[in-house]
């Protein structure tokens, strides 16, 4: 036996407690329901739609301290979306990663403060362009849990059931093609929701929405964020929108996907490429399913009304992010 093989060979075996805890964690994961995409939940559970609106627009751990990172230049125009992706990726790679140098499981949380346009009137899927709600959310750094004030001062912690999580994307190799493949695999493995089916939403549009959700609602490492920025231009139909406005009125530049029924935007700052928010707009009059209340099952055959062309479906602005020690803690408390 050689020295390397013996080196630290007296390291003790796993304790009974740690083993039991790990096994319990695994069994819990096995017993969780199959993951469903955030958008499906949004429309299947309208009463919770505002929450998952948040899930889709929240910040990432990468954005902590991100505002100090300068962009390549100050020019406002981009030749194409590939150029935007490349510049945003480079900025992401320069971002600090100290929020995510530990195993994505226990410990700290990401506090996110944002302004969103609330739903106009349930179960209608469009949001109210004229109103804003300020929302505070905490995300566990592994991306698996979110916590939110339930409106009466009590913190509600929920599992995040989007199919892909930050930990999945951080698995090597972290390249644009690899993360895109994971996104597409997640889309392929998840049946389209009644809403998506009704809209004839193609795979690439669902992939764009999946990345929107990830960028908004999962703490991502710099490498993953950069890979996602470079993956976006690889999706057919993604273009650059030179001037986009978030829900706080801030102007930026957007990755945009224009589908047959809906236009979606991931808005970033034109100078330092930090995430600003999301916007979605309905492009054609469209019936929406009547899915009832909180516990009602999906009823794809029923419709409750029509969403008009031009109606905003999502509008958000991220205002502040900060890593904190526990859910419920606000910065500078």
């Amino acid at each position, binding site marked *: 036996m*050689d*020295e*390397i*093989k*013996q*080196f*630290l*060979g*007296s*390291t*003790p*075996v*796993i*304790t009974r407690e*740690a*083993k039991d*805890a*790990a*096994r319990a*964690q*695994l*069994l819990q*994961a*096995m*017993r969780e329901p199959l993951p469903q995409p955030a958008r499906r939940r949004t429309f299947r559970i309208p009463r919770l739609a505002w929450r998952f609106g948040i899930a889709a627009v929240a910040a990432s751990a990468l954005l902590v301290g991100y505002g100090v990172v300068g962009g390549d230049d100050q020019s406002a125009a981009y030749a194409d979306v590939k150029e935007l992706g490349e510049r945003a990726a480079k900025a992401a790679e320069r971002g600090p990663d100290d929020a*995510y*140098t*530990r*195993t*994505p*499981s*226990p410990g700290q949380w990401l506090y996110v403060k944002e302004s969103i346009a609330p739903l106009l009137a349930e179960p209608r899927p469009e949001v109210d362009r004229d109103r804003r709600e300020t929302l505070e959310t905490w995300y566990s750094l592994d991306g698996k849990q979110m916590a939110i004030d339930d409106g009466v001062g009590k913190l509600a912690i929920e599992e995040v059931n989007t199919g892909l999580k930050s*930990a*999945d994307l*951080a*698995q*090597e*190799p972290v390249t644009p093609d690899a993360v895109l493949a994971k996104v597409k695999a997640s889309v392929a*493995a998840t049946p389209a929701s009644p809403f998506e089916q009704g809209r004839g939403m193609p795979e690439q549009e669902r992939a764009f929405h999946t990345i929107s959700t990830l960028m908004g609602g999962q703490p991502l*490492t710099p490498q993953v964020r950069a890979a996602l920025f470079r993956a976006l231009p690889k999706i057919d139909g993604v273009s650059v929108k030179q001037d986009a406005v978030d829900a706080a009125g801030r102007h930026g530049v957007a990755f945009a996907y224009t589908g047959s029924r809906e236009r979606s935007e991931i808005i970033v700052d034109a100078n330092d490429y930090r995430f600003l928010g999301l916007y979605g707009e309905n492009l054609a009059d469209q019936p929406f399913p009547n899915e009832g209340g909180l516990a009602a099952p999906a009823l794809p055959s029923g419709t409750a009304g029509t969403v008009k062309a031009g109606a905003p479906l999502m509008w958000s602005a991220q205002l502040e992010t900060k890593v904190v020690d526990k859910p419920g803690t606000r910065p500078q408390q």
Partner: protein
Amino acid sequence: MTQTHPAETAEVDDAELIRWSRDDPEQLAGLFDRYIEQIHRFVARRLGTQAADDIAAETFLTAFRGRASYDPAQRLAGPWLYGIATNLIAKHRRGEERFLRALSRTGTNPLPEPPMADTVVGRVAAQEVDHRLAEALASMSSGDRDVLLLVAWGELTYEEVAAVLKVPIGTVRSRLHRARKKARIALGGDDPTREVA
């Protein structure tokens, strides 16, 4: 290869368990039982037992989530799990290097460990070697260190290392060559990983 692989004595091989787990997720608990101790030990030797508790648990969660992509031609899942653990360890590069630097300075494990009374004498005797090896490991690139420790501690073949790290086998060989050279220099002569035929 003196270690008896857990699956060699079981009736059902790992690939079959993973295949079953696609329809019956809890079958994967069988894989946990077979490998948790060796995966935890591998991580604990690199990062200390406390970090290993989390990373070993995360390794099996990652395996569970990624079970659909497992290559059923690989009857034993050990290399796959070591690969997942290595990728998770990669997020702790700085922690690992701090761990090794502290070890190289003091010759003792810098992280809190359970009592090891029966091993104290042996550890003191081996302190000088540990000191040098820790320094050598800390000074290697993370890629070289991954390959060296997957081969030396995980007992993976070169082909298995290439597959789990997704690098060409030539890269495995060159990384291992560099790593062994550093270790050899640190120990003042013989290749500390060379197998005696």
